[in-house]
């Protein structure tokens, strides 16, 4: 079994209204050092596959086809073998 930890973020340059709102809230709470907030998604997918490489390929396909929208988002993931 493998566990993928997937991070999906908006591409650089794509406006993030949620991030901007949170950034303003942090400023109003006196976190004056805050330069930027960007909000994304974190997903955990546990899957079975024949090898780490096969699992890697599957997760990549999942991200490309469904989990991320390539028009506005990009993704990274960590993959590790886990006990059943």
């Amino acid at each position: 079994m493998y566990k993928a930890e997937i991070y999906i973020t908006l591409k650089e340059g794509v406006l993030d209204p949620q991030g901007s709102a949170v950034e303003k809230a942090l400023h109003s709470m006196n976190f004056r050092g805050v330069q930027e907030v960007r909000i994304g998604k974190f997903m955990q997918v546990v899957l079975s596959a024949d090898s780490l490489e096969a699992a890697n390929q599957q997760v990549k396909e999942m991200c490309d086809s469904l989990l991320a929208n390539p028009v506005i988002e990009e993704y990274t993931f960590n993959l590790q073998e886990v006990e059943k």
Partner: protein
Amino acid sequence: MKVGIVVFPGSNCDLDVKYAVQDVMGHEAEYIWHRNKDVGKYDCIVLPGGFSYGDYLRGGAIARFSPVMEAVSEYALGGGLVLGICNGFQILLEAGLLPGAMRKNDNLQFRCQNTHLRVVNSKTPFTNACRKGEILQIPIAHSDGNYYADAETLKELEDSGRVVFRYCNPSGEPTPESNPNGSVNNIAGICNHGGNVLGMMPHPERCMEEIMSGTDGVKIFISMINFLEGGGGLE
């Protein structure tokens, strides 16, 4: 005109579209369950508004993998009329039948209000009953209608007349104040290369009778009927 209305789990404007087509326009409309793979017998397919699959992940992201969508894609690529309204527009974007993507409204609000729309292209199967530059009033109701396309795609859309509607003020100017969600270039609706696929965030089916506080939605359906009867659109 025989309209097929796709019903996804979570669609909620399917009844309104059926009422608009059947009761107001006097034409035929049937529901197509999302598991159905045959859409061939209709003159037009409508992807209605709502919250298909609870908008989980992203609006339209899961619906686009419904069995019916493969048939809708084939139908669209074959030149069939496809109208995506609100969530239906999001589904068309996710399915790649139209370019771009939706972001959260820049004001982070769910906007449920009337909007003024400028008809930028009146030569489509969905707008031929309008004058170019005509100002329509059609309501919106969404929180993810902030249209985005990269600069290159945007230029292509603009240059080829595929921006069909723009949010504007009552005099027809696309000002920042009249933009309810932050969409690039005030875009409210776009069509594909062929002009036979239209995605729009505003809901024409919600302004079909005086009692609904407006009747401009009728023009969209009249245009479709005109087109199907050989009367206009797609030069």
